């Protein structure tokens, strides 16, 4: 025997109420605004960053008064002029810029064959293995990975142990520039591979076969077919690696041992060692400026590549 209650289940009543509330709050004549309403929470969340940036800009305009250790009341550009006239900051800036360019180049060169093999291999097992080998370090985090390198490269570490077996005296492998760059390359490789892979997957395999059957060597096929078509992936990967390594903190701090500071380390020191908030804020703003400049330049030159979100991804 069916009661009317069962004929119209409770769940339907709830759904009716939800639908009615929804159409009361947002009538269908507003439907053109719906996507903007859906974007609103994300936009508000990101707004926190924008407000943070404004805060940084504000405090960068105040000079630290050395007698009271309070920021000055008046607005001044003194922090910036001091940064530009201090040789140390230029050294740090140059070190970070050069380092991030070298790391980006190395990452792209080594990530390319890895993603290529991962995308093209006919063996699902190999693909899964390559994916796991990629995700495991990606998901472990920078500090643990840097710690692993400390164990490997330390004076009594694995690398020196192996060198000792063939009779080579221990070498100081840590706390120098190459060690930091090496750590950064290892940190960035998964990012680079993951940004490259979708672009490579979008290249039809038939194109390569066609080039082959027309007599092109694999190297020619690579430079004339694969490389140009992989451009969106290279742009996306290059951008991510460049900006992340330019602004990295942990690798220079842990593997550089304080002697190989990047800009982020200099900023941290200004805030937490010298407690000169204005100076740190000015440095931060300069770094944000350099980063945005690099991103904007690449975007206008090459487009957003695989970084694009939403419909018009290429």
């Amino acid at each position, binding site marked *: 025997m069916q009661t009317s209650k069962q004929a119209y289940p409770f769940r339907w009543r709830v759904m009716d109420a939800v639908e009615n509330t929804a159409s009361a709050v947002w009538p269908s004549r507003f439907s053109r605004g719906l996507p903007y309403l859906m*974007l609103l929470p994300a936009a508000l969340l990101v707004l926190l960053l924008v407000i*943070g940036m404004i805060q940084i800009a504000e405090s960068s305009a105040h000079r630290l008064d050395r007698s009271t250790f309070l920021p000055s009341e008046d607005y001044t550009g003194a922090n910036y002029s001091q940064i530009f006239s201090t040789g140390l900051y230029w050294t740090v800036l140059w070190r970070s810029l050069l380092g991030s360019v070298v790391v980006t180049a190395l990452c792209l060169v080594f990530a390319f064959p890895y993603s290529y093999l991962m995308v093209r291999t006919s063996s699902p097992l190999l693909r899964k293995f390559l994916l796991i080998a990629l995700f495991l370090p990606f998901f472990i985090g920078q500090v643990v990975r840097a*710690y692993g390198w400390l164990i490997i490269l330390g004076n*009594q570490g694995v690398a020196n142990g192996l060198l000792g077996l063939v009779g080579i005296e221990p070498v100081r492998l840590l706390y120098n520039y190459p060690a930091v760059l090496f750590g950064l390359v*290892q940190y960035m490789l998964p990012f680079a591979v993951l940004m490259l892979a979708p672009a490579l997957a979008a290249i039809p395999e038939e194109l390569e076969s066609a080039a082959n059957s027309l007599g092109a060597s694999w190297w020619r096929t690579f430079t004339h077919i694969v490389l140009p078509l992989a451009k969106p992936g290279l742009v996306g990967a290059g951008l991510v690696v460049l900006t992340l390594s330019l602004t990295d903190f942990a690798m220079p701090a842990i593997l550089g041992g304080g002697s190989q500071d990047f800009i982020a380390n200099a900023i941290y020191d200004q805030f937490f060692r010298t407690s000169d908030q204005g100076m740190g804020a000015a440095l931060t703003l300069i770094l944000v400026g350099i980063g945005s400049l690099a991103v904007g330049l690449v975007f206008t030159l090459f487009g957003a590549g695989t970084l694009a979100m939403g419909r018009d991804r290429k």
Partner: protein
Amino acid sequence: MNAPLSKTIVIWVMVGMVLIVLSAPTLVVLGASFTSGNIIAFPPDGFSLQWYAKIAMAADLRDAFMRSLAVATICTLIAIPIGTLAGIALSKYAIRFEKTFQVYLLLPFTIPLIGSGIGLMLLFGQMGMLGQIWPIGVACCVINLPFMIWAVSASAGGLDPDLELAAANCGAPPISTFLHVTLPAVMPGVISGSLLMFILALNEFLVSLLLTDARTVTLPVQIYNSIRSIITPDLAAISVVFIACAALVIALLDRLVGLDIFLKSK
């Protein structure tokens, strides 16, 4: 495809180098955690589980790990609704100023982490919210939000808009259409995105370093602070906790959506 030998050799040599470089720290940390010696040396001094016993007893490490878990959970819970809605909106609708929205929503990636971290530190400091766990979760969510939006919009791109029209045509009101057609279609993206958000927040170091104090220190920051003073095998044993978490998330990703989802051409 029959690849020439030289191509196969070049690819495999480079891939082999990448594999060694990627896996070396993980393997060495795993190996070092089982040493029976008091320092980490090579070759290792023998096998023991003493360092695991030691970290299991350490209350400060356990607390730090719990805080990390809380941060990651808060971050994921915020990211799921916000990122899902934004991802669907970006991939389904023709939006005016779409480029502007994209650039704006990519800000967490284009602003350097140290910049975001310090900005949020000043902001939260002014609002008197430092010294709590949840602002760290919010911060981790903000800086990784594009990952969530990407994952969802990649799934939503594969959804045929006719399906939603068909549902509406059969009389389904908007919310029902969303719940029964749109949401199931983007579910793989939501799952992979939220797993990413969780593990990235669990590992987040720099922003946590800036936002934590002695009471709210998270595990990566705790490890970093200990590295500075002295290298002992108990750090390796804690690091294995992270390796285990990473392996768990990879297994979940593989079971629920398949790792291949990251190889799809967008």
